């Protein structure tokens, strides 16, 4: 079960009905055991439902006709080319929004960066980690489907280098293996920061987490209906998470293990 802060970022899209099935299940599971979040959702949902019920009335207020005429008349206003360009340069929401959204994207989850964090992990803790990373997997893909961000191989590699001191080489020509890169995010979980690389394999969300400085035994676990495959490479632990047939998960894991370094 994820924590209250873990699901905090997706409660509002949950109320708005914008989450996919998996992420919704994640929030549902949390709500079953958390009265505080349940009360929050009840209140948020009641206010949302009320506004929706009265939305037509709230939108019934129209601009005065005189204002409509004045604004329409502005269409014929003489335009001085030079000043028009000056104004235009300041008013460019569609372009200025993008970097900000990307920053916000990171800020939503990235609360603290404290360098590489070393974990001590026992075998018994693996199940908890698999559950936690599966929750992150669902949450990050849910946010991604709302924000629709997409990063290139170069952007992800640069991020892994600067954020995790990891000279990662992402698989080349992953598309030939039906793997399409979505992007990367820093994910905070209780023992520190992990790198999260997201792909889609034939449309199925696939997460690869890199846990710096930890040694885990290789393992295959199940969490929330997902498969979690754990392996080590050059002192780093990797966890691959996906919800698909065993054959598909195995195929993806084999490809990633062979091509990601």
């Amino acid at each position, binding site marked *: 079960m994820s924590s209250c802060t873990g699901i*905090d*970022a997706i*409660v*509002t*899209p949950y*109320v*708005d009905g914008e989450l996919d099935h998996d992420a919704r299940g994640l929030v549902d599971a949390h709500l079953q055991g958390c*009265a505080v979040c349940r*009360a*929050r959702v*009840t*209140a*948020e949902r*009641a*206010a*949302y*439902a*009320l*506004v*929706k*019920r*009265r*939305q037509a*009335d*709230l*939108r*019934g*207020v*129209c*601009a*005065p006709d005189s*204002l*409509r005429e004045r*604004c329409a008349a*502005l*269409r014929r*206003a003489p*335009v001085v080319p030079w*000043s*028009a*360009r000056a*104004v*235009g*340069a*300041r*008013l*460019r*929401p*569609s*372009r*200025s*929004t993008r970097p*900000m*959204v990307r920053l*916000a*994207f990171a*800020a*939503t989850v990235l609360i603290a960066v404290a360098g590489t964090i070393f974990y001590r992990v026992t075998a018994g803790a693996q199940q908890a980690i698999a559950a936690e990373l599966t929750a992150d997997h669902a949450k990050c893909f849910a946010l991604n489907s*709302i*924000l629709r961000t997409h990063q290139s191989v170069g952007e992800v590699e640069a991020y892994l280098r600067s954020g995790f001191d990891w000279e990662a080489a992402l698989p080349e020509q992953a598309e030939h293996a039906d793997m399409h890169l979505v992007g990367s995010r820093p994910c905070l979980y209780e023992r520190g920061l992990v790198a999260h690389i997201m792909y889609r394999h034939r449309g199925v969300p696939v997460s690869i987490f890199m846990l710096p400085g930890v040694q885990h035994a290789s393992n295959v676990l199940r969490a929330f209906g997902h498969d979690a495959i754990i392996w080590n490479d050059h002192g780093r632990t990797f966890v691959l998470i996906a919800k698909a047939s065993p054959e598909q998960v195995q195929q993806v894991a084999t490809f990633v293990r062979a091509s990601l370094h």
Partner: protein
Amino acid sequence: MSEAQSPLWDAPADRTALFEAEALAALDGLYRTALRLTRVPADSEDLVQETYLKAFRAAESFTPGTNLRAWMFTILHNTFRNRLRDRAREPVQADSEAVERVGDLPSSAGETPETLLLRDVLAPELQAAIDDLPEAFRQAVWLRDVEEFAYADIAGMLGVPIGTVMSRISRGRRLLFERLNRGKLAHV
């Protein structure tokens, strides 16, 4: 993004006419939103008029195929913020910061009786309660639930990160719920 893809945007004259018509179609929503910002009809009319003046002058910087309505709302909010700044008061900033420091609301919300009470709330009372919300919450809830913009569009309009938009929507709704309930319970 490519202009050639849309036959609607072929001729420059058509393009201008379409741009102007679509921009003017946003008038009612802009006016309603301006009322939430200024609370004064005359100020709202001024604000909307200035928004159109800027929009028509900056038409060439609009990217065809993107959301023109969201672009107009962004100009409206930028203009409003600039006006406040011109008056050297900057209450928006102060208000927003104070708002982000507000802790979690009490979770006294029960499961049924209170939510049922809210069903009877009529539009004027709801409108008044929305207008009573602190500005940052008011704008987020209004733009999302009444004007139905995407989180990312609202983030662009308000000049805040998308996570902040979501948390303001959430807190705004809960605050609305608490206040309307308190009013209702007082009458029971």
